[in-house]
């Protein structure tokens, strides 16, 4: 390591297509610097979620280079991408994606249970409990997901994303299903974490009222050259 700050995301000539070329993503260049909090906006289907999947390594670009936290995600094998994801990226989904057959604690611990790279230790259990306390759901650890409110569910999803102190947080419309009060709470949780842990935060959102809370806003309809050409 040179000691110079490593960008969160550094994409060059990134190209991805699926569904017989009906959808194309083309990014000549995108750099997101360390500790930036970025909101990605744009119409539905312009490729915002696809970009998040490329950053996590779930999808692989057809061409171009993509470095995340200094690692060439675009050149990783499936196993390498999985371990990288587990250790470096926290994901928050719009529909929470919690497992109804697990209680609150097990949902927060899910990345450790399903991943191989990190083993379930007492320290991790303690952190899960601490996160739940911070999120105001500390007294509901053994409660089934089905008995939580929408706001509580979203907080479980955030706690799960923060469990392994990821240097990069990705959130796909994290406030899409929430009322204004919960929207504000969840976004504050994510931004506070990013600030405290000096982590990066990339959020896909349609909610224009939240944009001024991010350090940078990217309009993906202008970034994706394939969309522009169309």
């Amino acid at each position, binding site marked *: 390591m040179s000691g110079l700050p490593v960008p969160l995301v550094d994409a060059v000539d990134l190209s991805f297509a699926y569904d017989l070329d009906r959808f194309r993503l083309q990014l000549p260049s995108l750099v997101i610097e360390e500790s930036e909090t970025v909101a990605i906006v744009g119409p539905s289907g312009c490729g915002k979620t696809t970009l998040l999947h490329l950053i996590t390594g779930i999808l692989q670009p057809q061409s171009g280079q993509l470095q995340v936290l200094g690692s060439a995600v675009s050149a990783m094998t*499936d196993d390498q991408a999985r371990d990288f994801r*587990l250790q470096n990226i926290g994901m928050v*989904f719009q529909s929470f994606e919690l497992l109804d*057959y697990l209680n609150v604690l097990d949902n927060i611990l899910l990345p450790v249970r*399903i991943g191989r790279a990190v083993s*379930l230790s007492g320290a991790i259990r303690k952190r899960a409990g601490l996160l739940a306390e911070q999120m105001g759901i500390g007294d509901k650890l053994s409660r089934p997901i089905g008995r939580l409110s929408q706001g509580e569910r979203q907080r479980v999803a955030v706690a799960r994303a923060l469990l392994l102190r990821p240097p990069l947080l990705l959130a796909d419309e994290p406030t899409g299903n929430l009322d204004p009060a919960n929207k504000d709470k969840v976004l504050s949780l994510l931004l506070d974490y990013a600030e405290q842990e000096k982590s990066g935060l990339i959020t896909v959102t349609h909610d224009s009222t939240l944009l001024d809370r991010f350090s940078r806003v990217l309009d993906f309809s202008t970034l994706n050259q394939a969309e522009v050409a169309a």
Partner: protein
Amino acid sequence: MNGVFYLAWRYLVWHRWKSLTLTAAITLVMFLPAALQVLIDQTALQLGARADQTPLMIGAKGSPLELTLNSLYLQSSPPASLPYGEMDVIRQQGLAAPIPLYVRFKSRNAAIVGTSLAYFDYRQLSVASGRMMAVLGEAVIGAKLARTRNLSVGDYVLSSPESAFDIAGVYPLKMPVVGILAPAYSADDDAIFVDVKTTWVIEGLGHGHQDLAGPEAVRAILKKDGDNIVANASVVEFNEITDANRDSFHFHGDNSQRPLTAIIPVARDDKSAVILAGRYQARDDDVQLISPSRVMNELIATIFTVRQYVVAALSLIAVATGLVVVLVFMLSLRLRQNEMKTLRSIGGGRWQLAMLAGAEIILVVAIAVLLAALLTWSTERWGTPLVQALIVS
């Protein structure tokens, strides 16, 4: 617990009814053929053991199976009778000691076995309380019968009429219980043993009545010709043999013509048994000598043939169940595509996800195997009394 196994376990617990149904189906598919095998083996063992204990059996010509079931297992309708005189025929040959059996009457559902004391030595039956029968009219009963009817020494058993509508038929005889046998875990546990002459009294071939020479019987006498006295129906007949009236009991006619259902010839040795069998084979009258173990082996072979058909049918059911289980898991995985996508997004690899699905199947099958093994073991452990109860009762 390993991560994927923990998640699989939580999933199965959450969807408990689906999991229980799958587990029960797989358990039954494994348990039923195993239980069938165990029960048939134990049945064969039970049936065969008593038959093996009795190498030869003599009875009237007819169904060997009926003769065996009646004489060995004290059930089924009585076979045709053979004369008591056959006992002397066997004795005179000097090849075997005969044990008489007359298994025709019942006391409710329990068989009344008319025999001699030699039967108890032959079957190695010992008295647990009381004593062996000594005189006419006394009964010794099996352990299970004593328990189920709550009978003890000093109580009575009553023979049942063969037909409730035949008023001229067999009258009930009240018999005191003088001994209770130790459990033998065989048909003997449910039987009532009396001297063979007592069964003839039950049949009406012997009887006791008031003294016709006494003054109280004068009005009943129709004709007197020396010692021969003819009386009318008002003469009091005894339906219980007591010390006071025992001497009045007597038999009319030729003793050698009285009936038996079977004779167990206890051969002196193997050679005597073979000679005896040969002699009976050569005889051209109404008596036959059978080998109960051969008869039972034929019956068991029939049971085994039936088992093969049942096992074949169960195998087909097993295949069908297996396919349904696979279908259920496949449909479940299809419904859980979103969940799999999420698990992949947060760090689950393809291998882990495949393991998760596999772990659910492994857990269900493992629990089913354990349950099936436990049930099969229980069947093996407690199936014997069940088989004994089914066969004996």
